[in-house]
């Protein structure tokens, strides 16, 4: 019965509806964009209305916010965190830095295009993106989830070799931090 197309579709719709309205965001301020996360989450903008809520550990989180630039040192941790997260998982890129390097395009320590290292589902324009834009980003992600198009995690799995090769290109020593839970 579970193979039946119609029931599968119904399950999908329910699942996607629940996923869409329950986005747990990993509390990891990777860059300066983290400064607009507290306003987004607090009373004035109140992202909890949309089902967006903080999650303390990667195991529980659905959404990874890359709030701006990533230094190679952080990238290493972010990759680890991303791989710890459970499917389905989504990545939102904040601001210019995740798209094409932003202000730090010539820095020796920051990566420029995030989608080369991690699959990104939604990019939010701005430097900083305002809380309104962040909420708009979540709304867009919800739209994509509803349509079943937010499949970054699948892409990552399918092209793992490509991603891994890119990651190793910028991380000189591929030795993960000593904590390995």
């Amino acid at each position, binding site marked *: 019965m579970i193979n039946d197309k119609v029931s599968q579709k119904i399950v999908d719709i329910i699942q996607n509806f629940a996923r869409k309205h329950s986005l747990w965001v990993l509390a990891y301020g990777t860059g300066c964009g983290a400064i607009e996360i507290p306003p987004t989450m607090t009373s004035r903008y109140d992202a909890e209305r949309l089902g967006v809520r903080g999650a303390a550990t990667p195991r529980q989180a659905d959404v990874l916010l890359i709030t701006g630039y990533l230094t*190679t*040192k952080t990238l*290493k941790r972010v990759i680890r965190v991303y791989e710890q997260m459970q499917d389905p998982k989504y990545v939102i890129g904040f601001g210019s830095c995740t*798209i*094409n*390097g932003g202000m730090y*395009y*010539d*820095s*020796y*320590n*920051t*990566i*420029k*295009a995030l989608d*080369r290292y991690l699959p990104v589902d939604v990019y939010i324009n701005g430097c900083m993106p305002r809380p309104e834009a962040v909420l708009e980003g979540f709304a867009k992600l919800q739209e994509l989830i509803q349509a079943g198009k937010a499949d970054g995690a699948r892409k990552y799995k399918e092209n793992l070799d490509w991603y891994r090769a*890119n990651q190793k*290109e*910028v*991380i*000189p*020593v591929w030795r993960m931090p000593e904590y390995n839970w």
Partner: protein
Amino acid sequence: MEERKKEIIQTITDHFKDAVSNPYDGNRVDFTIPKQQIPAILFYLKDEMGFNHLSHISCIDWLEDKQFELVYILWSYTDRVKVFVHTRVDREQPVMDNIDMIWRQANTYEREIREMYGIRFAGLEAPEEFLLEDWQGPPPMRRDFDTYAYAMKTFWDRQEARSNAQDVRETIRRRTGEELPDFAKKYSR
């Protein structure tokens, strides 16, 4: 304040024959001194003169002089005067005395300078890595390290989509058939 400044300069130049005082306005007193005497003068300034707050330690790479310049900036809460102490270190053999027994916080500054400029501080006890992780290039803040070239080489970016960009000067030059001699090109923007 002027009298106090004069007094400070007098005392220091009396005690440290090699110290050269550079004139500045306001509440700034400025000395240049050989690097061997740095711990001594800083000790003296702190213990005898009341400059008990180390505000900053900075480093400048004078590539053309083949030297590093270290700047120690002290502040006296009582006199409200800041003292700059400059010294120069050879760029080939950058070794300096550690001063974190005078001010504990100097430890952090020295760690950063060690990592960013490759200056060794004799007797500095701290983990080797500070801001960078597994860095394999030269100390990055040195002037001969080109961060742009490094970034372009190392990190991929979306440049193909922008490849139809044109230089304004070049476009006009092509349109008019102007021939720009090579020696003038360095003055183009």
